[in-house]
């Protein structure tokens, strides 16, 4: 296998030369025609025409309990019911992305409406009906459903997405001695990923071989989780996820459907299809934990930040190590010699919390970027000038250089394009009819990571290439960018490159998560393509660096040879692998950006409308301008949701997630979203990967809600510390006399 370890900065590559001219271009999605015509098969849509059975989950409507007995007789007596699966192995929520373990119920109810059994029947309608006939007897146990009153029990988890604590110097001492002290507490509610495709699985046994089609992001981990959950060896399981109807972290670990479908299929002796209901998705997969974040900043009188603390309390279920890492950006984004970033996990008996799009940044920067706005105002400094005054030159925690950090350029470019100079200099001073108008801005950053990943390129005798990897495309554009990378590297027109993804029988990949997918899987394709170029050069007896590849021809000196001739009627197959290396340790890598928002707040109702939203970003090489921009729109719109609409409500008495559907959990709709602007600056980060690219999928959500909050303040003079900024929080405090003099 051809392997590249990212130990040093990458030099000039074929991607820079751009001979084929396809890298970076905003070409249409590779699989787009299938998606717009309804022909792309998602998990549930496999085995059409085969005799299958249908599953339906029986939920346990109690917050915390031991199951005394389950009476399935009535359900089983219903004509058309094939089986009722019960037992210890029933998965009660999604698995975490950190390891192969799966949460099995083992006779207990851990959270309200967790799965307790699965009905399998000839039809969906019968399974659904019979699910109501399963009778469960519970012994209620004491449950805790909120952090309130129990925060002192918070534990420092060593099984989370970052270290629980990151410290430098002596924050408390430095803060006590600071000329200016800022101390605010912010809260963010629990959020749900709410991908449009409910988690679904189709499971089929052939003897002891299990095939599962499921909606999953990290196939090589997920296949182990399925094997664990079902109790078989992972070598016996094949997992396929060719199309995924959105993930946003909620499909990093398998959902309960994968194991339940497999158990059901084994019991009834035929394939089982199981799609979670939307209510199951809200109550039996995973969610983002609510946070209580204390931000303390010490500064000099003239506005220089000298110390920074960001302390987060967030919940998870008993024994769960994951926590919402709200301080993840704080560690390197803000200056200060004395630093403190902590996370404490308060155990609650509510649905497990896990990774949702930009774990950490999406919540943490709602707090810190609002704090910076408020602090700048206290100093009487424009928020942009304040950020410039406090831009660190190197990673303030580790003292290593930034691989590249163009935050201030993003801010300047954004300010110019947005017309920041026109911002009302005092809050609550601009009124247009019944609307109070304000501007706000915030920084964006998202830590970058590279993961081990491999891919195969098969060149057929006629000079077509097929990229094969277990990588997934969750809507991010993976199919398309892998096609573009292979085409550019190999000098092939796009229509001569195919991409096969989402199958554990293909070379193991990083999977999709943490915005690492494009860089990691893309680099593996890069490495494989380089090996093909080397082989071509060897066969032509030239140095690879002198070889130009374009439109299916190799050009060496004055020779122009079609690939089919080089391949001599034989298929050429190579595998490439990328691994992270020293550059991950000796540079600090992140994508950066800046958000600018204009909002209007209704002076009578307190309704907030986002009028304009601009994000300027840098994320290294952009592989496809169109899909990258779409990713950023997605982040911006999630920011609108997080700032203004979304809130998963848990009943503190029972543990019920009250708003467990799309009618009551408010994701942004068309009418909530104005025309958006996204500008991605030309950029390269040679330390990040052979592609010189960085993660983009989560950059735009980082901080955008704070830009909206800051604009709401600018419009109304009201600072909101508990998200979302709903009307009830503004109404009682709306100013009476705005603009009367104007």
């Amino acid at each position: 296998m051809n392997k590249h370890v990212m130990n040093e900065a990458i030099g000039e590559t074929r991607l820079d030369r751009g001979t084929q001219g396809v890298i970076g271009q905003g070409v249409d999605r590779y699989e787009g025609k299938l998606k717009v015509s309804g022909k792309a098969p998602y998990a549930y849509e496999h085995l059409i025409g085969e005799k299958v059975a249908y599953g339906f989950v029986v939920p346990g409507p109690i917050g915390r309990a031991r199951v005394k007995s389950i009476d399935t007789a009535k359900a089983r007596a219903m004509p058309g019911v094939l089986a009722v699966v019960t037992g210890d192995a029933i998965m009660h929520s999604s698995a975490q992305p950190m390891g192969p373990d799966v949460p099995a119920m083992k006779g207990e109810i851990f959270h309200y409406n967790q799965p307790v059994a699965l009905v399998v029947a000839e039809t969906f309608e019968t399974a659904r009906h019979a699910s109501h006939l399963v009778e469960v007897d519970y012994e209620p146990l004491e449950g805790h459903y909120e952090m309130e009153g129990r925060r002192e029990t918070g534990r420092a988890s060593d099984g989370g997405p970052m270290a629980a604590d990151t410290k430098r110097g002596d924050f408390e001492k430095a803060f006590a001695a600071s000329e200016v002290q800022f101390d605010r507490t912010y809260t963010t509610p629990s959020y749900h990923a709410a991908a449009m495709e409910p988690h679904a699985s189709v499971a089929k046994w052939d003897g002891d071989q299990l095939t599962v089609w499921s909606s999953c992001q990290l196939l090589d981990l997920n296949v182990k989780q399925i094997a664990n959950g079902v109790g078989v060896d992972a070598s016996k399981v094949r997992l396929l996820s060719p199309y995924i109807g959105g993930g946003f972290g909620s499909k990093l670990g398998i959902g309960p459907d994968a194991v339940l479908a497999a158990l059901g299929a084994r019991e009834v002796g035929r394939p089982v299809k199981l799609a979670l209901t939307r209510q199951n998705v809200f109550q039996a997969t995973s969610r983002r934990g609510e946070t209580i974040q204390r931000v303390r900043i010490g500064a000099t009188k003239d506005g220089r930040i000298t110390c920074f603390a960001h302390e987060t309390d967030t919940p998870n279920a008993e024994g769960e190590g994951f926590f919402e890492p709200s301080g993840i950006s704080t560690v390197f984004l803000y200056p200060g010699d004395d630093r403190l970033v902590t996370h404490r996990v308060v155990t609650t008996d509510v649905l497990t919390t896990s990774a949702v799009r930009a774990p950490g940044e999406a919540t943490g920067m709602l707090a810190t970027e609002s704090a910076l706005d408020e602090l700048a105002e206290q100093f009487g400094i424009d928020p942009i000038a304040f950020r410039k005054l406090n831009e660190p030159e190197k990673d303030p925690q580790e003292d290593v250089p930034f691989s590249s950090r163009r935050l201030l350029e993003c801010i300047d470019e954004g300010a110019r394009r947005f017309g920041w100079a026109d911002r009302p200099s005092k809050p609550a001073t601009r009124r247009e009819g019944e609307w109070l108008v304000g501007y706000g801005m915030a920084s964006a950053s998202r830590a970058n990571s590279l993961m081990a990943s491999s891919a195969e390129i098969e060149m057929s005798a006629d000079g077509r290439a097929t990229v094969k990897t277990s990588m997934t495309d969750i809507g991010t554009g993976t199919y398309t960018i892998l096609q573009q990378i292979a085409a550019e590297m190999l000098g092939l027109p796009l229509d001569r490159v195919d991409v096969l993804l989402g199958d554990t029988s293909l070379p193991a990949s990083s999977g999709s998560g943490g915005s690492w997918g494009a860089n990691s899987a893309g680099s593996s394709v890069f490495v494989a393509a380089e090996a093909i170029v080397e082989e071509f050069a060897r066969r032509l007896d030239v140095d690879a660096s002198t070889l130009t590849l374009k439109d299916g021809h190799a050009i060496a000196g004055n020779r122009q040879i079609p690939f089919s001739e080089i391949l001599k009627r034989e298929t050429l197959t190579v595998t490439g692998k990328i691994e992270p290396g020293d550059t991950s340790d000796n540079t600090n890598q992140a994508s950066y950006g800046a958000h600018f928002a204009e909002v209007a707040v209704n002076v009578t109702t307190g309704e907030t409308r986002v009028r304009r939203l601009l994000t300027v970003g840098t994320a290294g090489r952009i592989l496809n301008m169109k899909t990258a921009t779409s990713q950023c729109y997605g982040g911006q719109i999630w920011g609108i949701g997080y700032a203004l609409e979304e809130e998963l409500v848990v009943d503190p008495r029972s543990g019920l997630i009250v708003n467990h559907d799309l009618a009551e959990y408010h994701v942004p709709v068309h009418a909530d979203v104005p025309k958006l602007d996204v500008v991605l600056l030309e950029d390269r980060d040679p330390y990040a990967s052979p592609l010189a690219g960085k993660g983009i999928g989560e950059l735009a959500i980082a901080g955008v809600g704070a830009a909206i909050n800051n604009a709401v303040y600018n419009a109304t003079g009201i600072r909101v510390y508990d998200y979302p900024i709903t009307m009830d929080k503004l109404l009682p405090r709306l100013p009476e006399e705005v603009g009367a003099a104007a």
Partner: protein
Amino acid sequence: MKRNRRAKRSMKLKINGVEHELDIDMRTSLLDACRDHLGLTGSKKGCDHGQCGACTMLVNGRRINSCLTLAVMHEGDEITTIEGIGEPGNLHPMQEAFLHHDGFQCGYCTPGQIVSAVGMLGEVADGWPSHASADVKAGAALSGDEIRERMSGNLCRCSAYPNIVDAIETASAKMKENA
């Protein structure tokens, strides 16, 4: 009176111009009839409760949430699903526009968005007003605000909304040209 316990019934459904004869549970939604029994999986199930629009079909030219209606209620109706709008080799202008404007990411809400958009343009052409219309009697010109209002029953968690609006504007112009 003894309840009729026979849950199955044979029914005829005309979908994308093709007659299908089915013998299925009377509780089967139009959406599930297509997805589970006819191999027409283009229409998606996002909620099964009329909250997301992923299942949008046209019934006699009008858009409906097919998860909220029983198949058995649609004998004699002309039903159009995404498969009847256009195919990969022969895309409808709306599908072309979604493709070129990147009006989708994961693609799961997309068939619903596209069918809904086609139905919506019909409503506008027929002079139906919306909440965004300045004058409910005057009919409506197609503006960005009109599109956003009229498409708000189709959720997209990937949040392709800006591109969807652009796609609908492009397709609408193209369809007028073709008409």
